[in-house]
């Protein structure tokens, strides 16, 4: 196997986790028109959630995603009531600032509890070796879990009544309310799902790399790139865009220094914003 294929497979595997992280941001942004700046902090909380649970129950780490998803939903409802509900009808800057404030609170509390020292989840699954290259079991399991969660969300949004309500509110909030949909409940649920997705992506990342309470920031930045690539309110598109971003990283790294990758990512961000302002998978009309 040549180096570029190995690098692309590695990129594809981590790209699925980027995609899952971005799905939460994309859902909230698309449905509520809120740029959720607690996104990075909740990714970090997902990492520490996995660390705490795995320390207490050293079973297969990926089984612990279930309580983390549930805890993420509750945390999302809490953050919604603290920082979003009261400002949802005000200009976008208000929710931007209020979520930023909550972000700083989470990071402050997290730093007090865990400091900014790195932590690890010491769980390893056997990998697959092809020629000289080995693909770790954790990367494959994390990518698989990300795809399963993304498919579950897609099924929820397109196959359930509540999912339909979320899409209706995203399309036209006033019309949905006239049809008897409680927009407050739907918005709270959409926010909770978004936070839960962020937390679960953080939990997956924690099985791959060491992390600190500040680690969410870099995944938040990647989430912005992926969300813009996919187009707002296209959660499954975010997963696909995440995978594409990972593949791109994998394809270019054999030819350039790894430290140049952020430049390429954000260059792509600007290009997509200029050429495809609604994203690659965005709709032609609002």
């Amino acid at each position, binding site marked *: 196997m040549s*180096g570029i294929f190995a*690098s692309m497979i*590695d990129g594809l595997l*981590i790209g699925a986790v980027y995609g899952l992280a971005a799905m939460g941001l994309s859902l909230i942004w698309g449905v509520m028109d809120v740029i959720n700046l607690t996104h990075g902090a909740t990714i970090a909380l997902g990492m520490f959630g996995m660390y705490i649970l795995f320390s207490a129950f050293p079973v297969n780490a990926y089984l612990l995603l279930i309580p983390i998803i549930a805890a993420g939903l509750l945390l999302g409802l809490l953050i919604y009531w603290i920082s979003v509900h009261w400002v949802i009808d005000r200009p976008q800057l208000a929710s931007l600032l209020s979520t930023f404030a909550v972000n700083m609170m989470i990071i402050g509390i997290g730093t007090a509890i865990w400091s900014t020292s790195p932590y690890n989840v010491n769980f390893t699954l056997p990998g697959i070796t092809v020629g*000289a290259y080995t693909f770790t079991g954790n990367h494959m399991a994390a990518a698989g879990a990300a795809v399963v969660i993304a498919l579950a969300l897609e099924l929820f949004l397109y196959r359930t009544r509540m999912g339909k309500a979320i899409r209706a509110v995203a399309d036209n909030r006033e019309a949905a309310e006239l049809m008897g949909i409680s927009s407050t409940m739907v918005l709270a649920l959409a926010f909770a799902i978004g936070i839960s997705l962020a937390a679960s992506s953080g939990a997956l990342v924690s099985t791959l790399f*060491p992390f600190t309470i500040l680690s969410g920031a870099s995944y938040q930045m990647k989430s912005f790139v992926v969300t813009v690539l996919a187009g707002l309110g296209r959660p499954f598109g975010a997963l696909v865009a995440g995978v594409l971003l990972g593949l791109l990283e994998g394809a270019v790294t054999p030819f350039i220094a790894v430290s140049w990758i952020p430049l390429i990512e954000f260059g792509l961000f600007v290009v997509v914003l200029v050429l495809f302002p609604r994203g690659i998978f965005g709709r032609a009309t609002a």
Partner: protein
Amino acid sequence: MKRLVLTIFVLATLFVTAGSAENLTIGFTVSKTGALNVDSLEQYRGFELWRDQVNAAGGIKAGGKNYKIQFVNYDDESNTKRVQQLYSRMILQDNADFLFSPYSSSLTATAAIVTEQYGKIMLTTGAAEGKTYTLGNHNLFQMFAPATEYFKGVLDALKTKDPKATVAFVYEDAAFSVAVVTPAKAYAQQLGLNVVFTEAYAPNTTDFSALIDKVISSKATVLLGGGHYADGSTLARQLYGHKVPLKMISLLVAPDSPQWGELGDAAIGVIVPSQWEPQTAFKAQYGPSGADFAKAYTAKYNAPPSYESAGGYASGLILQRAIEQAGGTDTAKVAAALNATDITTFYGRTKFSTAGNDHGLQIGHAMVLAQWQKDKSGLVKQVVWPVAAKSANLVYPIH
């Protein structure tokens, strides 16, 4: 009346003969949080053990006075901006008499600007980069052997064991590791070793997959590099996870920490260039023996000392000796005593350059190589180079 006069006489005599007790304040920052936390904490423990032992023995005795040591220290968060603020604060507000460096070359370079600006003596430890000493500083004294020395021993050993080895340098893009790798790469080529891959990674990198794929593609058989604990331990873990077929791995700093053993099988075989190991038996002309230091350290912290800990303790010893020789804490006299220092402690020889172009650079200290090996008791760190100082044979290849 007679009794009162007698009492006053006895008290006055005691006061004069016992020497007056004064406090000596030493300032430094510790990376209690952030990426440098592990190594910095070990350095701090070295400072702390030295202070406690000196104070328990009555303090530093110089010029008829006993100086009790007190520390003023803050968390620099592994951040150069904090270092700049905090070293100014320790000098201006906390009135520190002397300073120890923070941990790492990057933070120390920043602290040195402040301490030189205020004409304060700073003993640097945990900071091997040599460039700082070429900037015309007068009050900066380096305890670590300079960065240029780090990979010399590894490359000499490699040349002996496998002159046809292919070498990859994968290192943190930070002052210290760049200062180590740049001369090491030239030295490898000078030895006739084939350097097939070189790439730096950003500090705080956690995903090494892409770099590891490149190392495999380069067909390197030896990997040298790393930076500090956080990135070095992650790199080793991922090299092991990806089953990279390397015959030798040598990483900077991280494998010296006792915590390295927690990596399990990923730790085995990894070599660290070390400023000091408990097995290195120097005959101390001043201060405790290596065995006594290691015993006291282990008793206090329930962990063996790393070379960062030894460097911290030795910094205290060298400052203590300079104050004793200077007969007090006058900066110019203590600086003169440090300039004249040429002494062997448990840590090895210490001598500072007094040349104009690299004043304060460490020119007396020599390094060893330590390798993590598995024996009956589990994972242990053995001195494997130079051959004259070895406690076990170098394991090569590791896979």
